[in-house]
């Protein structure tokens, strides 16, 4: 990792054309850090994550992704940066006509690195989907889809993992399983940011590692709870 932060927000503001959703947000995600992002529905958690992987551009301030100003990035630059950022959504999308294994290796395929897929079986076993490699995505349960999305997000060995409500559709047992996978990734040195409103999950994570909790309130981000 080159800089002291992988993703940095400096006085960032954002609006969708109406009033500001985020305002004067400053934050640096250091390499290997683990952050939770909380806040009420509609507070701007998903927007914050989209700014972090350049799906959205800030309307004020500056977002740096791997030390590059997001506003100055070309579409190809954005594509290249996403090969270093794994994203997991609550309603993760797949190519429904392709089997799970092909979906998981999709980041390698588009990067023309299919030769790096030899660890696929181990990866699928790690997320508990080893026996479903040939299954089509529509046949997977919510938990299986979330774990498949996580496997797809990390197959390129990204520097950063951004997860938007990854346990939103999961029961507690499955949520814990997914959390365990994220904790293991953090211990491997990955930078992780999880947007969630599940306080039980946050408490469970903080019992296992030093995670910081951020809260979006009044359009700004602040340390929350015990981190204050």
């Amino acid at each position: 990792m080159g800089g002291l932060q992988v993703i940095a927000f400096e006085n960032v503001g954002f609006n969708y054309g109406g009033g500001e959703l985020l305002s004067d947000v400053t934050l640096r995600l250091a390499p290997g850090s683990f952050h939770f992002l909380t806040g009420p529905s509609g507070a701007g958690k998903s927007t914050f994550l989209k700014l972090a992987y350049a799906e959205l551009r800030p309307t004020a301030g500056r977002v740096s992704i791997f030390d590059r100003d997001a506003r100055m990035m070309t579409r190809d630059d954005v594509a290249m940066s996403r090969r270093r950022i794994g994203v997991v959504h609550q309603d993760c999308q797949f190519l429904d006509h392709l089997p799970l294994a092909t979906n998981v290796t999709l980041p390698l395929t588009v990067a023309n690195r299919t030769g790096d897929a030899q660890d696929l079986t181990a990866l699928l076993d790690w997320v508990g989907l080893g026996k479903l490699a040939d299954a089509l995505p529509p046949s997977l349960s919510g938990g299986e889809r979330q774990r498949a999305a996580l496997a797809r997000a990390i197959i390129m060995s990204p520097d950063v993992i951004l997860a938007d409500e990854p346990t939103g559709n999961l029961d507690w047992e499955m949520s814990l399983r997914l959390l365990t996978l994220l904790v293991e990734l953090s211990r491997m040195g990955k930078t992780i940011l999880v947007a969630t409103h599940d306080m039980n999950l946050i408490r469970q994570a903080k019992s296992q590692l030093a995670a910081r909790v951020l809260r979006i309130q009044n359009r700004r981000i602040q340390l929350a709870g015990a981190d204050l």
Partner: protein
Amino acid sequence: MKLTLPALLAPDRQADRVVPPSGFTAQLTSFTAGAMAFLAVFALALSLASGRLAERWASALAGTATIRISAPPEQLDTQVATVLALLSTTPGVASARALDTAEQRALLEPWFGPDLPVDALPLPRLIEMTEASPGYDSQGLRLRLSAEAPGAVLDDHTRWRRPMAQAAERLRLLGGLSLLLIAGATAAMITLAANAALSANLPVIRVLRLVGAKDAYIVRAFVRRFTLRALTGAGIGTLIAMIGVALLPRADEAGAFLTGLGFQGLGWLLPVLLPPLTALVAFAATRYAAFRTLKGLT
């Protein structure tokens, strides 16, 4: 990888697979390309046949003229000799000869049958004249004829030749215009089909962007599919049309237009160009549509 035609034709199984299996747009593209190529073959045949016809009419009538001599029977031979003598000293006239009775009978036979008593009829005498290069002064010749042979009238075929050549030329232009319209309609139809396919596959495109696919990769997956479909469809359409043209009756000696509709010699190679041209149109149309769609996505 750059989005070029050679790169496009190189097989890429992985890229092909990311776009879902073909739906109705696949059939629409192939059918459109096939139908348009079929029509294009006939438009091309029409254009080429018109061109040949225009040339034939022009060359058959250009450079020749006829002098018709109507005079009392006792003066007819004298006036014919006078006109022939006059023509032999006229600059720009290569040769001139009087048609004999047999030739005049042959000219009238289609209308009056073979038993026409030409000798008994007060028919005018005809002199066939061939123009040299540079040609003669028709206005000056008419004045000399009216002075020395009052019964002689010069017909340089202009009033026949011009409208026929113009008609054939316009037919050729219409054929060319039809080809352009067919190319435009093909591009429009394939763009519509590509847009429909791109809209139907927006979730696929979003996933590809999310996992780091560059625009060129996504565009290539769609463009390759549409280009190959268009190439296949146009190939089939062209083949069927060429078989149809080949089965048309051959041109008879009179060169009747409809029986002359077809290709000759190297002209048969022109329709073979239609499938790759259609593929090129599909390539450009899909590429344009795909990049335009991607611009709206992050």
